[in-house]
Structures are given as structure tokens and as C-alpha cells.
């Protein structure tokens, strides 16, 4: 087997704040092969966005990053600014949550698309324009030629996200990072955008990282899932294996808290009590222990390391894992 396209090795991110150092990402290891999809799932503040910024080398200036991010044979952490700039937007593309703020409001859609294309692929204006039209058509924008002359405010949220995806895809990236790509969108538009991403991914054999707080968004769409809590990966597995038998109580609780269509109205939801710990005051034990219904003595004393489950590729960080033998609650 060849080396993975992306390897995140022991990456930690610290941000200085007035209240002390905030450990946003706490020694994370992940890897992703070409053409595969990794879903990173967790609540706000769990470090999932910071981790993706670490991969893109787009961290705040004051942030301290340690570890290695190997992408296509080079360590992005040690790459100089010029080579990074050439890589980003070309081999390494990103789609952000809010398409209103990620597009420039005073430039036309055509200008924004062609700017990226001409920066990275030596095309003249007419070739870049032809390619822009082709891309807009590929992401499902009707009358793409007319759209080129329009500004972002003339498009709906779903359209804007399609345009952001077109820009991200414009240079045939090897890796696309989609950070909550549908959180700002309606449920019907969300389904369309997720389908679009999946289709373009297959067509281009591109690797993709989908970052989301909604397990539903990645369940049928990611090959592998990593669940993050308080800056760490607490469970990681191929998607079917994870849903078949989750070992980390947090993953179970996260899934249970989603309202289900099959459930009768007025059924109390199994909420996770409390909230995540203050990231400037790291706990000695497992970060989830204060909210965990299985937590016992040791959980408050020591941090559980990620260890392998029976299934190959399934890792979890818990002293009292659930569903270790057969699934019992089915």
C-alpha cells in the first residue's frame, strides 16, 4: 500500500488567552488515503475546526502548533510561505461554513473564480472563463454564463455554497476540506450540497474531510469517522464499524441526543447533561468523565489513551468502553 495522502502526526495547537493557554487540539493522529472521505464529528469548541486550520496552515498568528502534517510527501508545518501559497487553492482546497463571508461581496462571481484558476493554472482569460462556466455548470448552477457577471448578494445561500465549491474544485485539488459545509443551509439544500460534494469527489478521485457536529450528515457519506471531544480524538473507526458497535460513551450519547423521526412526540430526549470542560482548565482525567454515565474512579484520575478495538482500524479512548462483545441494546 502506498503512503496516505494526508498524515496528521501528534498535532497539538495551543492558543494564548487572557485566562491562560487554551489547548484547542490535544495531540491528534489521523490519516487519510487519496480518494477517501474522513468525517470529523464533535460539538462546538471540540477542536475540529482548529485541527483543519492546522492542516491548512491557517491558524491564528498567536497559535502554537507542534507535530507534523504530512501532505503528499511534504510536511506542511515546515513548508515556506511561498510554497504553501502555491499548494493552497490548488492541491489543498477548503469550503467554509458560511458562503456569505467566504466570498468577496464586491467582486463578481466570475472574477473570484477566474482569479483562482489563473493564479494556479497558467490559462489565459478566455480559457479561464470557459473553465469557470464549466465549473458552475458542474456544481448545478443554471445559466452559468449569466452568473459570472453577478455578485454574491444576488445569489441564495445554497447558490453561494455551490459557487464556493466550484472555486474549491477549480484546480482539481487532491484534498478538499469542507468545514460544516451545510450548517448554514436548509435541509433540502443541505441534501443537494452533500450529494454534489460526493459526486464531484467520486469523479475527481479527490480525498475529502467533512467537519460537522451532525452525525447524520456523515453517516452515509464518510468512509471513516473521527469523533473529537475537548481537543482529542476519542473514537475513530470505519463508518459502518462505528455505527455497528461504538465503544466510546460520548459517541453513543451524541447519537442518542439527535431527535429521531421514528420517535413519538413528547418523548424526552436522552440529553447529555452539563457541557464540555473549559479548554483553559484541562482536566486530569478523561475530559468526558464529568458528563459520562459510566464514569468511575479511574476516569477522573488518568487520561485514557486511544487503543485498538477488536475490529481493525477501530480505536477508542475509554476505561469503560461499551458494547465490547455483542451489541445488546439492539
Amino acid at each position, binding site marked *: 500500500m502506498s503512503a496516505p495522502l494526508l498524515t496528521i502526526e501528534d498535532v497539538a495547537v495551543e492558543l494564548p488567552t487572557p485566562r491562560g493557554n487554551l489547548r484547542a487540539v490535544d495531540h491528534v493522529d489521523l490519516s487519510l488515503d487519496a480518494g477517501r472521505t474522513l468525517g470529523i464529528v464533535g*460539538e*462546538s469548541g471540540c477542536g475540529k475546526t482548529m485541527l483543519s486550520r492546522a492542516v491548512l496552515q491557517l491558524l491564528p498568528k498567536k497559535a502554537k502548533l507542534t507535530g507534523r502534517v504530512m501532505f503528499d510527501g511534504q510536511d506542511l508545518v515546515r513548508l515556506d510561505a511561498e510554497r504553501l501559497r502555491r499548494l493552497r487553492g490548488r492541491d489543498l482546497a477548503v469550503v467554509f461554513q458560511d458562503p456569505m463571508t467566504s466570498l468577496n461581496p464586491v467582486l463578481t462571481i466570475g472574477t473570484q473564480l477566474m482569479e483562482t484558476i489563473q493564479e494556479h493554472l497558467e490559462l489565459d482569460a478566455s480559457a479561464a472563463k470557459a473553465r469557470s462556466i464549466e465549473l458552475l455548470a458542474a456544481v448545478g448552477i443554471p445559466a452559468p454564463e449569466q452568473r459570472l457577471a453577478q455578485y454574491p448578494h444576488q445569489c*441564495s*445561500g*445554497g*447558490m453561494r455554497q455551490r459557487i464556493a465549491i466550484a472555486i474549491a474544485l477549480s484546480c482539481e485539488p487532491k484534498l478538499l476540506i469542507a468545514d460544516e459545509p451545510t450548517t448554514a443551509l*436548509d*435541509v*433540502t*439544500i*443541505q*441534501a*443537494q450540497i*452533500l*450529494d454534489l460534494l460526493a459526486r464531484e469527489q467520486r469523479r475527481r478521485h479527490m480525498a475529502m474531510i467533512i467537519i460537522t*457536529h*451532525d*452525525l*447524520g*450528515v456523515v*453517516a*452515509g*457519506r464518510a468512509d471513516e469517522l473521527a469523533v473529537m471531544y475537548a481537543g482529542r480524538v476519542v473514537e475513530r473507526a470505519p*463508518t*459502518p464499524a462505528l*455505527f455497528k458497535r461504538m465503544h466510546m460513551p460520548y459517541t453513543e*450519547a*451524541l*447519537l442518542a*441526543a*439527535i*431527535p*429521531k*423521526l421514528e*420517535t*413519538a*412526540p*413528547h*418523548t*424526552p*430526549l*436522552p*440529553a*447529555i*447533561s452539563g*457541557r464540555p470542560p473549559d479548554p483553559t482548565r484541562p482536566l486530569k482525567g478523561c475530559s468526558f468523565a464529568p458528563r459520562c454515565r459510566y464514569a468511575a474512579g479511574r476516569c477522573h484520575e488518568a487520561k485514557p489513551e486511544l487503543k485498538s478495538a477488536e475490529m481493525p482500524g477501530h480505536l477508542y479512548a475509554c476505561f469503560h468502553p461499551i458494547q465490547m462483545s455483542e451489541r445488546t441494546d439492539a
Partner: protein
Amino acid sequence: MMQIAARTASGTPLLNVDNLVVEYGLGNKTVHAVSGVSLEVARGETLGLVGESGCGKSTLGRAVLQLRRAKSGRVLFDGEDLTAMEGEALRKMRRRVQLIFQDPIASLNPRRRIGDIVAEPLIIAGVKDAAERKRRVHEVLGAVGLDPELVSGRLPHEFSGGQCQRICIARSLVLNPEFIVCDEPVSALDVSIRAQILNLLEEMKARFGLTLLFIAHDLAVVKAVSDRVAVMYLGRLCEVGPSEQLFAKPAHPYTALLLQAIPVPDPDMRPAESVATGEPPSPIAPPSGCRFRTRCPRADQRCSAEIPELREVAPGQFAACHHPLA
């Protein structure tokens, strides 16, 4: 022409919205935000109102509370017509109806202390006795799961989104209202916190005997708390019915589309390729006839010529469609 959209099982409804029309001016154009909506909410009931952004669901909620005045139609609350009320009478009536917004952080004044924020409705309502105000503030803060002694003196930025929503709920309860419009109260919250707030709303409803209009775009969230659900599209109601029934057997193609679009947290349920449905048209120039017809797989000529009326398709379930699903 008039339709009883949602006849409830017994008694007079607490809220009766009758053929409500709300329009906004936009330059020399008109946004048809709500175009003839009729619905009823029985005392003690939760009516869920779902639809995509821009369908007019929030405008409807605001028009019920008279925060946006209707162009025509009536809003009867406990038998009294709110649309005919003004000034002092309306202010008095507003004590009985409250509103919870989507963004809990933006709806709290960042420079005021939590105790003062929650007490403000009491001051406006003319409760002069400071000790009485404090007692009420402590009561509602305790009810929403916050420690009054601990939080009263603090500022909103010291709280998380979920806690801010608890504070907003406390503020909405402090005048002992009968009816609360919840406008996307959990959309801005994380999954785990969302469940806490939904459970809290259910508890508060039982404890304070509330009637709720629960507005959201997430069908699963709506189902979790609603007795009946109304589906709205581009200013009109498509379908109204008891939650279980509507979700099990949607009659309107739009309801079916919404249900299909929900991501299911189960990898075995490979998402079906989303039906090519496009996006809602502009409410400035809504389609003739059935407003959903431009995205509807079942649309034919009749749908563009004739506006479908809400008709009973099953006991208690009404759909506005010329070609309802069996």
C-alpha cells in the same frame, strides 16, 4: 373561501389565525411573505410550524404577536382580535404572549446583568415591588435549571449558547404567559445542548401550562415536541395534521420532500440521491396556482391554473394539493 385549517379536538382554540396576509414593501416590489394562512392552536397544545428559510414562518410568528402588522386577516387570541388592538390594550395583551428567538446570545443585551434582563418584563408590566420582582426572577431562573444566586449578577458573555437560551426562556416565563412563540429556539445550538433545551421547553410547558407555536426548519426537532405540525411553503400552508400521522403518511409532495432530505444517522441508510428539486422561487413573484408546483414532481396544468385549498385527506390531516400522495 374561508377554510378551517386546523380544527382541534375540543373547545375554542386559544389562538385562531384567520386568513392572515402579511406583505413587505421592497423598493417598488412586494414580498408576499404570508398569503392567506389560517390555523388554530388549542389551549395546552404545541403546534409545530416547519418550512425552509424565506417561507414566511417567522413572519407568521411575528404577525401573531403583532410585531408585524398584517395587511388583512385576523388573529384571535382567547377570543379577542389582536389585529384590531392598539396601544395600551395591546401592551396588556402582550403579557400573555411571549417570544423566544433563534440566537440566544444576540437576544440578550450584552451590557446588562442577567437578573436585570429577566426582571425587565416585570418592570414594563408595572410590578413595582422590588422584592416581588426578585422572587419571580429567582423562581424562573431556578425553573430553567440555573442557580439564581450565581447567575443574577453576571453578564451574558459569561454564559454558553445553551445557558443563554435558558436565560431567554426564563425571561419569557417571568410574566406567567399563556402562549409562547418559539422561533427556531434550538437551531443555533449543538446537538447535545439542543436536546437539553427541547427537554426544558417540554418541562416548562407542563409546569406552567403553556401553549406553544414552535417554529423550526428541522422536522425531527419539530416532531419531538409537537402535537400537530403545519408545513409552510412560500407564504402558504401545504399541510397540517397530527405529528405522528403527518410524518408517517405525508399527503403533500412538499412534506414528503422535506422528510426525504433529513440526514439519517445510520450508514446503512445510504442517502438516496436528492431529487432534483432546485430552490424555492422568490416570494416577490410567487408562481401562480400552487406555489410549490415549480419543484413538484406531480405538477400538471391544473397546478399552475388553480390555487389548491386545504382539504381534509385523513381525519385531522389537511393538505393543499391537487394531487395528494395516497
